[in-house]
Each structure stands twice: as structure tokens, then as C-alpha cells.
């Protein structure tokens, strides 16, 4: 995925997140930062009070601030982001239990924001994942 396509993805993901009715309704305390890691690219998403504050694509060595990381292979991310994901790729828990996704770092903010994170990850079914051929 080229840098222009990644920037476009970040723009769409931000717009979709900030206009999503569920995140708007329930995101008042949704403030945390997390990393989406595919091996191909690393994307830090910084949330503040339910809105995307910043999205940092492939941050430099001393510029990678996040609380927890969601890591998976490009293939797992592609399946995860399909409009109709196949079994065992259809959510953070299922992909972590069965499809090689890894949740790392401080998992407490993940659990504290589980409702909103779960919803926000489902928005990848609209934008595709930030990996090559990530759009379903």
C-alpha cells in the first residue's frame, strides 16, 4: 500500500469514526491510543473523547506512542476487514483466539473501551484494512 493510499485510508477511517452514530452516542470517555500492526505497516490511532485526534502512519523509532497494539498478518487483516468476514476472522476476540491476531501492551485501556473499540474495528469493513489489497 503506497503512502498516498494510506493517507486516503486514514482520512476515510477518521471521517467514518467521527460520524459514526454508535461512537458519537457512547464515546464520551473513549480516549486512548492504539497501534494497528500488519507487519507491512504500523498505524497509531489516537482517540480523544470519542473522536479521532490523530492517525500516525508508520511512525518513526521514537514517535510510536500507544497503549496497546493489535497485531496480525496482512492476510488476517484482509479477512477481518471483509464486508462479510469468514468465521474466526470476524472480531478481535475470535481472531485472537483462532486466527493468529495478538493483543499486546496494556490491555486495561482496551477493556475499558471495549464497546467502542469493537465498534471502531468493525468500521474496517467499510474502509478496508491498512494493508495492500486491504479493501474487500
Amino acid at each position, binding site marked *: 500500500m503506497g503512502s498516498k493510499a494510506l493517507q486516503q485510508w486514514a482520512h476515510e477511517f477518521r471521517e467514518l469514526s467521527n460520524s459514526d452514530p454508535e461512537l458519537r452516542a457512547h464515546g464520551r470517555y473513549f480516549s486512548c491510543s492504539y497501534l494497528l500492526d500488519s507487519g507491512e505497516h504500523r498505524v497509531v490511532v489516537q482517540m480523544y473523547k470519542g473522536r479521532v485526534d490523530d492517525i500516525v502512519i508508520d511512525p518513526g523509532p521514537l514517535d510510536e506512542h500507544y497503549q496497546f497494539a493489535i497485531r496480525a498478518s496482512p492476510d488476517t487483516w484482509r479477512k477481518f476487514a471483509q464486508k462479510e468476514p469468514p468465521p474466526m476472522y*470476524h472480531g478481535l476476540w475470535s481472531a485472537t483466539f483462532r486466527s493468529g491476531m495478538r493483543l499486546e501492551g496494556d490491555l486495561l485501556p482496551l477493556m475499558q473501551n471495549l464497546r467502542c473499540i469493537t465498534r471502531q474495528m468493525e468500521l474496517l469493513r467499510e474502509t478496508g484494512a491498512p494493508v495492500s489489497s486491504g479493501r474487500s
Partner: protein
Amino acid sequence: MAKLSPVTGHYVDMKVQGDALRVFFLENGSGRPLVCQHTAGCHNHQWRYLLEDDDITSNYRVIAYDLARHGKSDPPRNRDWWKEEYRLTTDYFTDFILSFCDALDLEKPIFMGCSFGGNETLQLAYRKPDRFAGLIAVEGADYSPGYYLPWWHHPHANAAQVCASGVWDLMAPMSPDRDRWATWFYYAQGSEAFEGDLYYYSVDHDLRGHLDKIDTSRCPLVMLTGEYDYLTTPDDSRRTANQIRGAEFIEMKKIGHFPMSENYPVFKTYLQQALDIVESRLGEARKAAD
């Protein structure tokens, strides 16, 4: 006056291992009792569509109870339950079900349980097959480790939302939003019992090495598991069924771990197959006896 649902609710008083329990159940229909156990940390509204399905209730008396500490069934009335950590055991779960059937004078009901109830259905097949006319284990397996987690009660997180959103992708993404969110809502109500239920689900329940002793000639056993269930996968249930002589396993497509609640029309087609198998086995047994 507005139309009333034919489903009625009652409380029944019973004893389980010395615990004085007032148990709530919903019921509708007539015929052989079909006793339904909800999933861990939930309550009997998961069976709301089955309870009002004329196709089933015209032939079966559908009864869906709340296990003690769930829904409208309170914790034991005669014990300081708040001074103990709740951990459900196989012995208690089994005794509860037998006591409930006795309290309602149910003779040879069909029992159907889902998730931890599916596991318990296998325990009934192993321990008490002669008490039941048929057993339907939904999302069950011989062993289901890995879900007894500290996050369910972590004091720094919102337990209701962790439980409800933690089970979210146990459901299939194509199940209707309305019913997935109803199921989420039920889970937001049950976090206090969820962890103790999962002690049973992931720790105490373990039928590995015992499946060959289950005798389905004494009680027919059908297992149903959805392809989107990441906890008890179809492979887990298939592996279990393959070790039980005479057990039938059906994989359910495009549905997950809460099939009766997340997408009843899809579940119903498989439930009818399961009931047909049970009835057919019962018919064969009657013929053999004649």
C-alpha cells in the same frame, strides 16, 4: 386490552444442595416438556422466539428457566452468598436441573442447553441419561478451556460492558443487528454471575476420557454448533460427537454461539432437525420395546 403473549412466568421454590432457591421460569405450549438452559451470565430471554413459536409449542411444552443468580432467580435465600466467591460446579449444575425437573413433576423431558448449558447437556448424557427422553447440546464440547478470565470482574473496567462486548463476536456478523444487540443487552445484565459460570465452563467441566461411557441408546443425543463460534468451534463439537457412539452432530452455517437468540429463523431449521432425530430415535426404541 392489548394482546397478551401466551408465554407465562412463574416462580417455583426448590432446594439444591441445601440452598433454598426461588427459581423463575417462562413457559408456553403443550406436549412433551422441552426444558431450555440459557448461556453463562445470561437469562431465559435468550429463548424468547422459541417460547412463542407455534410450530414448536404446538408439540412441546417449552420451559425456559433462569439458573440461580441469573435473571429473576435470586441467589440462595438461606446462605450468606455475598461472603463467598461464586464458582459453579458440575455437581451443583446437575443437581439444579434435576431438582427443577422434580419441582415441576416433569417426566422424561427433552433437555436443551447452550454454551455452558451445552456442556452440561453432555454431563447429563454421561450422568443421568435415564431422566431424559432426549438431549440437545447446543455449542457444547467435552472440554472448553480458556475463557475463565480476570477481565470479567476487573475493578478498573466496566464489567457489564466487558462481558457484553467480550461475547459480541461469539455471534455471526450476518445475524440481525436487533437480535445481536438484544443479546448484548442481556449480557450487560449478567456480569456478576458470568465469571463464576465460566469457572464451570472452562475449568470444572471436563469430559475428556469419559465420552465412550455415554450410552445414547438410553437417551438420544444431538449436538448443534454454529460455524462462527470461536470458543466451542464446530471442530470441537465434531471431535466430541465422534467419540460418543450414536451421537449426531450438525454444523450450523452463518450463525454463532447464541443461535436461539442471535438469529432464531436460522437456528429453528437446525432445531427442527434435532427434534426430528430425537423423535425418530424414540420411535425406534418404542418399536423395539413392542
